[in-house]
């Protein structure tokens, strides 16, 4: 089960500059046949990490030991395509807790949030700066303060607030999920069903 609660993260990062990374790249459909949530990390970016004979592709940055960490930095429109939550499960299971990108595909963003995988949105300019710096200096440390919703990189003198509504922030800090909230208002839902409004 995905570990809940995400507070402060201090980690190196992996740069993945491609844009429009779709969920078929994140996890190809042929790996969607499992009926548990665990273990999808083995198949993350499978066709990038392995060649078609199943051998490691040394060109893939995820196979290069210099880069590692809990943060992935990616080109814009990350997670477009299918709604498969397996993509978020695979990323989380592989060991990432944060993806930094200038914008995310809508369904992927929700899936990430529901798995306490932080879709951290900053400007494209900042993404490019981070991609370049991390590519050149893999040991660069990024810090994320959830309570302050702040991304900091001391070496770059960067201290940036990132958007996150207070409801979701509280979910991340306390490990609460949407399901728990919805179950807590079940009487209100039943009441809504009894008094459905009409179109105006």
């Amino acid at each position, binding site marked *: 089960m995905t570990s809940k609660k995400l507070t402060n993260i201090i980690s190196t990062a992996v740069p993945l500059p491609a*844009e429009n990374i779709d969920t078929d790249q994140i996890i190809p459909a042929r790996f969607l046949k499992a009926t548990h949530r665990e273990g999808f990390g083995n198949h993350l970016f499978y066709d990038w990490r392995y060649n078609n004979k199943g051998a490691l592709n040394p060109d893939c940055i995820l196979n290069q030991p210099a880069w590692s960490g809990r943060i992935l930095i990616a080109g814009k429109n990350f997670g477009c395509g299918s709604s498969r939550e397996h993509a978020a499960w695979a990323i989380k299971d592989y060991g990432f807790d944060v993806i930094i990108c200038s914008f995310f*595909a809508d369904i992927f963003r*929700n899936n990430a949030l529901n798995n306490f995988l932080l879709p951290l949105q900053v400007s494209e300019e900042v993404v490019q700066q981070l991609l370049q710096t991390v590519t050149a200096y893999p040991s660069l440390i990024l810090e994320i303060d959830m309570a302050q919703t702040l991304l900091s990189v001391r070496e770059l003198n960067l201290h940036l607030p990132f958007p996150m509504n207070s409801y979701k922030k509280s979910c991340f800090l306390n490990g609460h999920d949407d399901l728990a909230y919805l179950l807590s208002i079940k009487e209100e839902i039943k009441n809504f069903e009894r008094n459905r409004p009409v179109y*105006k």
Partner: protein
Amino acid sequence: MSGKLNLMGKTLFDKIWECHIVKEIEEGPSVLYIDRHYIHEVTSPQAFRSLEEKNIPVFRPHQVWATADHNIPTQDQHLPIKDTLSAQQVQLLTENCRKHNIKLMGIGHPFNGIVHVIGPELGITQPGMTIVCGDSHTSTHGAFGCLAFGIGTSEVEMVLATQCLLQHRPKIMRIQIDGQLQPGVLSKDIILYLIARLSTNGATGYFIEFAGDTIRNLSMEARMTICNMSIEMGARGGLIAPDETTFTYLRNREFLSDEEWEKQLPIWKTLYSDPAASFDKEIRINAADISPMITYGTNPGMGVGIGDKIPLLKDVEASAQKDYRHALAYMGLNEGQAMNGLHIDYVFIGSCTNARIEDLRIVADFIKGKKKSEHVTAWIVPGSKQVAEQAEQEGIGTILRDAGFQLRQPGCSACLAMNEDKIPEGKYCVSTSNRNFEGRQGINARTILASPLTAAAAAITGHICDARMLL
């Protein structure tokens, strides 16, 4: 509630949205009530498992409808599924539906088919509803004037447990298309044209309302193709105001009684954007500008008119040039190359985008009396059992078989190649599906998206060609 002034009039989206808000969370999302929930074998097992672990029952089983479509074989469906993992997923769906009293139209059922084909054809999808499914192409149902969108498995679990979701109101875009389409231009060409213009992320954060007289003149099948692919420009969903075409389509559907139809009709007739409604973004398109479209790259936005050439690298945004080179290398194509004349190996006519009876009729009308090119493997996979049956009744099956097409049994098939229907490495496939992502139709398969007419023409000639020249 929406922040829009009532004096200004309301959009269709807002009319439906507001009627489904259970409550709003301060500085957070809204609680949106869901009328219809479609489930399938691939994105539901983890949701049921999680509910069982927490001992939570399914809240409104009669608002949930299930089908097996994503991983099922399209041949010999009466036999056990050979792939063990696929068989397990289908079995688990069957067990979960039985346990939770959910209506299942599984493999072999007379109503079985692709979730986005059967929902409308059975009359389960109706105007004004909120509809979700663990599949991004749920946007299809927006063609009936619904708020329909894809969700992840955690959200499937939420809807099973509470019939609600937490959602932020998206921005609303209107795309107005007016004028007469050129002969041979289909709704698939309209949506591929729009995606090429707006790009694969041009509508991220938006719901799109499609309007204008070109849209009004389309059949329900054609409207569904457009709404289906609105997700491919990043939109949360697409919708079209219901009208006489919609109401007529919904008559005599299995799960919509005449009585209910009569009762709902006056309500459905209130579902349109008020003339004074304002949109966050508006785009106008002249239908006459649209040619038959074809994709050359690895996302649905990489498309050109059938007579056009692949764009030159220098004309691509600097930041995107590396990805562009990579995409063309994957496709084995060159900048500046004409798509017309490209030798192809496979044709796949199917998927939730283009596997309805109208699509099969278009193909049959075109290929009648012709033979497929010898080197082409042509698969046609109907969207549902009902479509397959109707095709036989209309003689379409015979025409297809006579032309050398393989007419398969319903399912998602080679659209995402979860079953055996895979395109071999390096082969070109002209496909009526919705995504040309790398590896989507098989490892290193090369997908070229097109309309059913363009796909049929490619099957006959063995290369990409302008079907209008053969009409």
